[in-house]
């Protein structure tokens, strides 16, 4: 065996090493000095993120179980950046609320373990690796959702997440077993060659789809989302809505576009229906939310519906637009969650009414929030517009004009509730508005990166060209 091949797993190996290192640190560092682990973790992860951008060759390992190409590599980097921002945003929270209970570094360990799972999931070359990655990415997050053990809703969130995730993966597995039965292999390549549209494969595909649908919180499988987001710590809600969803979308895309391509005439229709249902339900439920976390939860469900517009194409254009959109979505949603996090940390307030008059006391935070919401709503010139426009273009390229029309109707609905937040922050005045506060360095850094991302990613066209170039592999 040639050990240099393992360099293909550079991301995974480095992250694993960091995780182990932190675990050892957690074990041996004295309690009083443990908060230094925050800085250490962020520093190490920052280096990891930077190293991630180095070139990587395209190849596969373990007889095709693990594969990597530039697209996957790029997506791992996107996830890395997302997690880095997340870490920056959660640093204060950890220091203030968690480390004094002597259980802060678990946050990093679990989070990194989950990220590791995602790496493996999106790099998977067979269903076994995929499944292990899926579970490794889900289970630590469930533990993290129940992280604030003194809070009841946190435990509830954990329960709901783990139960739904377990059922989802169970259903998925049953579907995979059917695909295995018909194709005789669990390797993607072999399945793609052997699969034909029979009743069994279609049923298997649907069950499998349902399983991933849970993770992306598509509509019939979305019921856990809002509760989990509300109960879980904000960092975790944000992780779930951004990183976890992004990775799931990516692997679903790969599987649909490569392995299940022969069944395209079936899943096209499924995606069509789910896209409409997801957009409408997500948006209509978001209208009446008052808690910011629930609000963002439903908004993220709706966003998942938009992503399906790219998924329905099954073309290179679809791949590129989805990745582009997810990239933008990562920054936008992280910015929104970051502001919610900052405010919740300072004042404990998570209600939309509490944001009334925020602009007059905390203009910068409100501006970040506004940019994030505009990006989510798809208002130019912030990035979200470009992401959405390209997704719609992708869908229209296949002639789904009705779907695009319904999607733009949804964009308008979504604009309404995003503007509700803007209204609270900018239009209204309040006597007991959240007083001015200054964020810590990490939080500010985290927010600034997201703002830069929101402003730049859309307008900077070479990025899209780059993604398009890479997306040819699928």
């Amino acid at each position, binding site marked *: 065996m040639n050990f240099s091949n393992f360099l293909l797993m550079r991301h995974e190996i480095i992250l694993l090493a960091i995780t182990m290192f932190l675990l050892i640190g957690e074990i041996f560092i004295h309690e009083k000095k443990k908060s230094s682990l925050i800085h250490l973790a962020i520093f190490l992860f920052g280096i990891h993120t930077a190293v991630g951008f180095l070139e990587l060759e395209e190849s596969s390992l373990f007889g095709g179980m693990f594969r990597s190409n530039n697209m996957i590599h790029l997506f791992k980097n996107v996830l890395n950046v997302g997690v880095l921002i997340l870490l920056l945003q959660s640093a204060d929270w950890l220091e203030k609320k968690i480390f004094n209970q002597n259980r802060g570094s678990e946050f990093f360990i679990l989070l990194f373990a989950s990220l590791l799972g995602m790496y493996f999931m999106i790099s998977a070359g067979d269903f076994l690796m995929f499944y292990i990655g899926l579970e490794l990415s889900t289970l630590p997050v469930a533990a993290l959702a129940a992280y604030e053990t003194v809070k009841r809703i946190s435990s509830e969130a954990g329960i709901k997440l783990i139960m739904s995730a377990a059922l989802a993966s169970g259903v998925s597995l049953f579907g995979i077993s059917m695909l295995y039965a018909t194709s005789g292999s669990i390797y993607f390549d072999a399945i793609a060659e052997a699969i034909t549209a029979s009743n069994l494969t279609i049923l298997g595909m649907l069950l499998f789809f349902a399983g991933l649908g849970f993770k992306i919180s598509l509509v019939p499988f979305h019921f856990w989302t809002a509760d989990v987001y509300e109960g879980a710590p904000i960092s975790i809600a944000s992780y779930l809505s951004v990183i976890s969803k992004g990775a799931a979308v990516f692997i679903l895309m790969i599987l649909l576009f490569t392995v299940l391509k022969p069944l395209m005439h079936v899943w096209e229709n499924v995606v069509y229906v789910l896209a409409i249902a997801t957009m409408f339900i997500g948006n209509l439920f978001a209208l009446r939310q008052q808690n910011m976390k629930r609000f963002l939860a439903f908004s993220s469900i709706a966003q998942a519906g938009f992503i399906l517009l790219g998924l329905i194409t099954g073309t290179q254009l679809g791949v590129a637009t989805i990745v582009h959109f997810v990239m933008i979505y990562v920054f936008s949603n992280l910015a929104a969650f970051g502001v919610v996090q900052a405010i919740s940390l300072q004042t404990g307030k998570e209600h939309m009414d509490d944001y009334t008059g925020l602009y007059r006391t905390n203009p910068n935070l409100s501006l970040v929030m506004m940019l994030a919401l505009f990006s989510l709503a798809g208002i*130019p010139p912030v990035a979200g*517009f470009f992401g959405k426009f390209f997704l719609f*273009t992708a869908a229209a390229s296949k002639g789904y*004009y009705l779907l695009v029309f319904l999607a733009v*109707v949804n964009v308008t609905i979504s604009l309404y509730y995003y503007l509700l937040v803007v209204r609270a922050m900018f*239009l209204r005045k309040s006597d007991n508005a959240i007083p001015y506060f200054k964020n810590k360095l990490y939080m500010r850094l985290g927010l600034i990166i997201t703002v830069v991302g929101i402003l730049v990613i859309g307008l900077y066209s070479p990025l*899209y060209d780059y993604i398009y170039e890479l997306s040819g592999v699928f």
Partner: protein
Amino acid sequence: MDILSLFVVVPVITILILVFTKGLKQARHVSMVGSLVQLGMAINLVFSYFKERAVNDAIMVFTKDIVWFKQFNIHYNIGVDGVSVSLILLTAIVVLAGVFISWKMSDLPKEFFVSLIVLATGVYGFFISIDLFTMFVFYEIAVIPMYLLIGIWGSGPKEYSAMKLTLMLMGASAILLVGILGIYFNSNADGGALTFNILEIAKVNIPFEAQKLFFPLTFIGFAVIGALFPFHTWSPDGHASAPTAVSMLHAGVLMKLGGYGVFRVAMYLLPEGTLHWSWFFIILSVIGVIYGAFAAVKQTDLKYINAYSSVSHLGLVLFALLMLNKTAWNGAILQSLSHGFMTALFFALIGMIYGRTHTRDVTKLGGLLKVIPFISVVYVIAGLASLGLPGLSGFVAEMNIFVGAFQHDDMFYRIVTIISVSAIVVTAVYILRVVGIMLMGPVKNDTYLDLQKASWYEKAGILLLLIPIVGMGVAPLWLSDMILASLEPFIQRVL
């Protein structure tokens, strides 16, 4: 930096400087300087355009083409013809006037001016775009600051109005998006590459089925902002709640995006669709003209009167565009310009009156001519322009429109033309009624006796708008020639 890109760059620089200003004084001075530069650029553009036109007979001049997203064939593609030049000039004037009118903005001045100039950026960008995508982007950039402008600095039911306006306009843009995508994916009908470039698409024969499907989407998408009849409801509420400068920009400039878009995109790119659907939209626009005029008669709130009159006048623009002949089109553009100056002036005056008397209810006002003569006289002039008095801008525009409209010898066209002409009579009714009640007669309230005279910045704003109105009325030919020359390609394509 080319002459057109500056129209986007200068406002952006202004905004960047504004962000670092403190207090009202710095903010308004920076904005004034920025707007002055823009006005200078606009005037310069007019002269350069004439010069360029003499040597260059391309459809668009001063073009610049930079590839943006090459996969979608999206370009940053700009250029102007006579129509856009005139509208850019309108914008520059109204923006500067708006800055003057907002001289005393007390609440969050910096943010106000930033939003105002963002709006201006969007409008400039929209008028110079040749690329559908860029156009769409600028369209949305122009619309979204309205939410904040009305919501924060407005009055009355401002949150409701702001939300209604934003949602209706964004909803329209969403429909428009589908239309644009439809055009885009049919732009390779003749075997070329997919493109967003208007000039390229104009060379393509898009299949009739597609035209039939996408024309209404595109048309409605643009026409909503041009206050097409059942979709006009955002406009009166928005105008009524908006602060003065925003009403000016909104009615004066933003609503022109509708007519321009309909003309430049929907009709130019989908000619067969236009022919197929024109009867339907003609009926709608005529209803708009009549409805707006009669509604204005009913209103007592000055802003509502003017808002409904805008519906009526802009309905006339759409009507003229759908008449499908050169004269009517020329009239439509002139009407856009005329209405832009006129209604901006109206709103500015109403803002001044409101600022002094704290009411906009016509029935409560009276005899203002005696206390604030300058404002009142200008109001009368604006009113006369609005009802189409010869020698003022309104006459030129309406004349062209109806002359063009009567060129059709079809019964249907005759009838609708007659109906819409009758709106002029109604216009006279409400204009003169307001003038009569508000300006003439005895002073109804003693507190009105010591109202302030117009200050220098108010006068500056008013004069800025008044000069073009008179100018257009007195010497319309240079403008009308410039526009007519630019209508040639449209005529070839559509007729």
